[in-house]
């Protein structure tokens, strides 16, 4: 019997599971889990897929994390969800602010409150049970127990440069910390991205961090050569060649080949009329030169929809030297898709399968590396994240 491929779908109104038992030909949609809750990210543990973690929020209620130890059949709430340390004097400041919605300040320093837990990354293969989350306002939190409890990563959250790195202001979705990537060769080597803030790197397990934005454009900033303040949308490290990292930025598509520390704008090779703006970027796990993006319209008011109303995926097979359009099966026109940064992913099958979810609640899949696309579910709520888990 063929194995089961499951697409984990995080939406604005809950989590869903899309399963295929017939080599990705047909898909069945589960009943919703946590219907009505915002699910920003839902990921199965690649080290032990019966463990799942999901970061959520509800309209009235604060952010939290749920975890499952039985493949998503039952869920428990983290007993210590990600939260910043309590700041001395914060209460008085808060009391003084009662009834007002702006963040409280005491002695000019913001008492940080996790507004949303936005991004989830499983830890290193040698660290079973370890997970990382990225939050808004920017923060990294670590769990060592499959998501039950979370501690702040002080090296980042309290970094002497933190306030400088994060002072650039919010994006429309808040100031998000995302794209936490752990080097498979070295668990102490970590990358993350902040929009707006830039790409950052740690080589000591998160104790210290440095910006890594050289070569990356930031045309919204007066000083384009600034060390930080850039707006990465999504950062991905190649799993087999971790020296190769790709970045889909607010200002273009980039590649970096370590030990170089300079981003190369491979998006300049995209067709001019399409441009190189988007949210997600996905790599082929078996070929570090192959990557897919989902371009969106980043002109004037930033529609963030498919350029010209003609959705397409673009693929490169030569590390960004050239790009090819893949739109077979996608609507030929009059379709305005938005695909969020967590909402595009690949599986581990042969041939490589690709998936993206739209803000209109459709999941599109290709079982042949993006050549042919079909819509495998419609009418879901706005999709925030997709991820894949396979089981026998």
């Amino acid at each position, binding site marked *: 019997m063929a194995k089961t491929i499951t697409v984990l779908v995080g939406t604005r109104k809950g989590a869903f599971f899309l399963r295929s038992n017939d080599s990705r030909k047909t898909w069945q949609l589960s009943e919703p889990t946590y219907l009505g809750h915002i699910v920003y990210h839902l990921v199965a543990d690649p080290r032990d897929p019966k463990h799942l973690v999901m970061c959520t929020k509800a*309209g009235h209620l604060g952010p939290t994390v749920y975890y499952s130890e039985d493949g998503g059949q039952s869920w428990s709430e983290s007993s210590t969800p990600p939260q910043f340390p309590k700041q001395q004097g914060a209460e008085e400041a808060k009391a003084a602010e009662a009834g007002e919605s702006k963040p409280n300040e005491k002695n000019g320093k913001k008492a940080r409150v996790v507004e949303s837990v936005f991004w989830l990354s499983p830890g290193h293969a040698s660290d079973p049970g370890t997970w990382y989350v990225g939050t808004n306002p920017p923060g990294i939190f670590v769990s060592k127990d499959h998501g039950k409890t979370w501690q702040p990563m002080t090296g980042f959250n309290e970094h002497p440069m933190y306030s400088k790195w994060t*002072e650039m202001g*919010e994006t429309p979705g808040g100031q998000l910390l995302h794209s936490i990537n752990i080097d498979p060769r070295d668990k102490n080597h970590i990358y993350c991205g902040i929009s707006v803030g830039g790409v950052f790197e740690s080589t000591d397990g998160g104790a210290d961090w440095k910006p890594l934005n050289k070569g990356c454009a930031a045309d*919204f900033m007066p000083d384009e050569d*600034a060390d930080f303040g850039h*707006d990465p949308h999504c950062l991905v490290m190649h799993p087999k060649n971790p020296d190769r990292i790709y970045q889909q930025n*607010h200002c273009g598509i980039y590649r970096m080949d370590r030990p170089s520390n300079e981003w190369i704008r491979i998006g300049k090779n995209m067709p001019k009329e399409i441009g190189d703006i988007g949210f997600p970027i996905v790599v082929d796990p078996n070929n570090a030169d192959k990557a897919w993006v989902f371009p969106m319209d980043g002109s004037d008011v930033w529609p*963030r929809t498919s350029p010209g109303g003609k959705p397409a995926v673009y693929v490169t097979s030569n590390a960004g030297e050239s790009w090819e359009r893949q739109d077979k099966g996608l609507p030929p026109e009059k379709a305005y898709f938005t695909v969020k940064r967590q909402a595009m992913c690949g599986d581990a099958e042969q041939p490589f399968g690709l998936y993206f979810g739209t803000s209109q609640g459709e999941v599109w899949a290709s079982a042949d590396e993006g050549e042919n696309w079909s819509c495998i579910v419609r009418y879901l709520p706005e999709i925030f994240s997709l991820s894949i888990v396979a089981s026998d």
Partner: protein
Amino acid sequence: MDSLSRTEKIRYSRHLLLPEIGIAGQEKLKQAKVLIIGAGGLGSPSSLYLAAAGIGTLGIVDFDLIDATNLQRQVLYDTDAVGKSKVQMAKERLSRLNPEITIRMHDQRFSASTAKELIAAYDIVIDGTDNFSTRYLVNDACVLMNKPNVYGSIFRFEGQSSVFSYAGGPCYRCLFPEPPEGDAIPNCAEGGVLGVIAGIIGCIQANECIKIICSIGKTLKGRLLLFDSLAMSFDELKIDRNPKCPVCGNLPTITELRDQDEICASQNQPGAPTATTNSNRVSTTKESTVMKEITAIELKKELSSGKELVVLDVRTPPEVALGRLESCVHIPLQELNQRLDELDKEKDIVVYCKSGGRSRRAIEVLQNHGFKHLRNLTGGITAWSFEVDPSIVVG
């Protein structure tokens, strides 16, 4: 004075027998103009009872068509009306119920552009909306137009009601200053609602409306009525007017109407920078006009260097009275359009308000009138007070 006809006297005789209403009260009802926003679960019972009670002019705003799932609680509509226009069907039904009154149909979405004009023609507003964006718009419009807002909302087995923006009382934003993010809170379509709850709360709204018109009893002003149908209990909480309320407070930040939908929609799109804080930064407004920014420290430097600059304060007079930048020109944002000739298009102008929102709008206005050398003081006078001159009081 519209006096009552013989038919009306018979029709309303049970009201006329009540000393609190009587002929005088019934005549007040006849003269009253009530706008019901949303002809759904709450709007059905309130419009039926208000029509029956003889409200002289009843306006109904809705843009929806009748759906089969509405029939469980929207008692204005019959089964064979499915697919038809709500306001059209409401008018037919209410006219049959009481041909003595005037029913005005407003077959439209209640939006920021039409809200004021619509509300201006009425004395009282009944909030029968089913989503936060319209609810906040109704609240703000009523506060700005100084009209009582009879509030009701329902979910599952619960209901709430109050009277906002009435006789010095609080408004909805005094309790919840900002709407929840987007459509994040489940509505009745998602969470369900017991149909009867709509009837109970809608009737309470009609009741409060009649009390306001006839000036009788004690209204729900300053009180949030909570109804729990499973426990079958009514309770009430005290709501005070919040001096810091963004719309009805002492220094309001909301002085014009804006559709919450737009704000929420843009919030749903993570990933675009809205502002940076390096020197000479630029920020992108909703309309994406490029806007130059200046920090308080940089402004201080430029002023000290003797550079010729016009500093424009666009706050309201009471805010300015509390503290202002020396040698600033003061033109409240609302008067800006009429007073453009007081400013020189050729000069460098730095615009500020309390925290940077209104000044950006002012800059848009000025840009539209050909002003070119414009900069926004980042963080407004709040930042100036914080970074340059702590002696300035920011209201």
